């Protein structure tokens, strides 16, 4: 057994790759939670009371948050599918 193969089998045995993914997953989940909470707050802002400029700013912030949530969910799905692949191996 070559040294690389040995290291890979040890990594697999100890689940070190998954460990790295788990850390990343936790970070994404935490960020998503915060972004969703912020989106909820923004959605509750009474739009009628806002000026035209403020409405525009609110719309922009919501568009950015929505996009970031989508991005975060995509990363989370990718990490989940990676973990499933690793466990099937």
């Amino acid at each position: 057994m070559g040294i690389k193969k040995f290291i890979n089998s040890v990594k697999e045995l100890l689940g070190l790759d998954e460990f790295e993914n788990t850390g990343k997953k936790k970070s994404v989940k935490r960020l998503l939670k915060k972004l969703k909470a912020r989106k909820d707050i923004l959605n509750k802002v009474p739009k009628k009371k806002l000026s035209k400029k403020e409405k525009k700013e609110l719309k922009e912030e919501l568009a950015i948050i929505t996009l970031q949530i989508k991005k975060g969910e995509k990363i989370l799905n990718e990490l989940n599918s990676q973990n499933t692949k690793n466990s099937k191996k």
Partner: protein
Amino acid sequence: MLRKIFLPSILIVLAYGFWISPDFKEISAGVAIFLFGMLSLEEGFKAFSGGTLEKILQKSTDKLYKSIGFGFVTTAIMQSSSLVSVLTISFIGAGLIGLTQGIGIIFGANIGTTTGAWLMAGFGLKVKISAYAMPMLVFGVILIFQKAKSLKGIGYILTGLGFLFLGIHYMKDGFEAFKDSIDMASFAVDGFKGLMIFIGIGVLATVVMQSSHATIVLILAALSVNQITYENALALTIGANIGTTITAVIGSLSSNIDGKRLAGAHFIFNVVTATIAVLLMSQMIVSVDAISDFLGIANDNHTLKLAVFDSLFKIMGVLIFIPFVDKLVHFLQRTIKPGKKKDGEEFEGVKYLNDSVLELPTTAISALTNETKHLYENAFEIITHGLNLKRENIISTMPLKDVVKHPHSENAIDIDNFYNHRIKGIYGDIIDFSTKAQSEMTPEDIEKLYKIKLANRDIVEAVKDTKHLQKNLIKYDKNPNKHIKEQYDNIKIGLAELLRNIDLVSKMTEEDEIILLLSKAKVHMQKYDILANGTLDNLIRHDLITNEMATSLMNDSTYAYDISKNFIAMAEVIFIDSSGDIKNIGEDMVISDEDVDLILEEKDE
């Protein structure tokens, strides 16, 4: 001059000693092998000190007692206070820890060195440790030849321990044989005079060997065969502790100001403790006897009693100094100051980059990140003043429209002069340091380093673009054409908003806010695309500005766009990459140009 004479003199004395006494040769060889073992051990531990080091350090040095514990444990494991001192200077230099924590680590390291005396007195002199040395050396050397960094590290540690054991064996054998030919104990001097002479010998021996650990092992070896008296051994131990500070002072010469202050703390601590020990010598001997009795150490077991003395002496020093750590820090900050600069006359230098932080890739990268932040702060000020805005207004909550109404000064600042004094030198040193640092780095570290270099280039480009922009900002600031003035005010407002957002990002810890602010900055950057958004077209078609104004506006909008682009790119590297959770996912969450288009479309709907 002295240094030129010192080395040949030592070599001549040693050569003469080897010629007249084979036993002296054996003792010296033992010391040399022991020191080589320490070097090897240091090399081995360095292989393991990257990566998570930063986290461990931050968690284990946030309180003084933790710093002391950290210093004690690391020195006990590595058996080298000099390695711990060098690494501590390196951590301070890189800005990973402060001076107070550094002093705590040094206190702990001082107590940690006593474990060496205990091991030697309790184990090394009674067991034939050379029997362990041989297999360690064989396994160690085999592992050193392996490619994997961790295996190499283990190899160096094993070889280091092997050489330490072998060195102790030779020292012990040498002194035993020496006893038959010369009785050194007959040279023993009693009383205060003897105390001072042997303290002096201890200092000298440690300065020559550059290790108090080696001196104490040598003292124990000589004491175990009664070549020196117990009282003289105590004095030599005190001397060794003073001598070791000279090694630290020499080591700090290449360090930054805090490294020098740390060496100062080390020196004050050891000299004051030694003075107290000399003054209270008889009381300390009585205390050592009492503690030895309590621990069941025989009255004539002088080697173990010396270990008790060493521990008592160092623990006493730390206990005396703990209440005064803050005062010590203030004193050092007052007395050891950086070289003074005359405003605007001298070139500003780097704050964090020095040879001491090159010890580890982690400290080198951390120092480079901090230095880039330093460069960013200078650039922030130059750009702010280049736009003729006040820094304090930008970082406040003042409405941006009001920020542009309060100019920084009546006259335009000379950006070239500022660039030469506060950017160019630092940038050059960062690039030079990066080249030096990368020779010891892994490909992953080199990638991080490359990103930092790019961030620095972005900062420099942003300053240069501000210089180009400044010319027309001044020209059109008081122009009677209100349309062109409005356009240039908009550029100023946009850049003020960018600077405010980047400043907020640099101070924030909430990752969702950081991501949101940087995304907003990217979206707002698009307003400088005056060709695409029809602003320029509108102004020309309605004859609101001249052709010359239109050309200037087009060029200057590009400069404003580039300044924003460069500053955002820099912030993504310097502030996202070093901030908690998003460090893991930063790159994936940064929005692309396509994302910006999507947001703009949604916004316009």
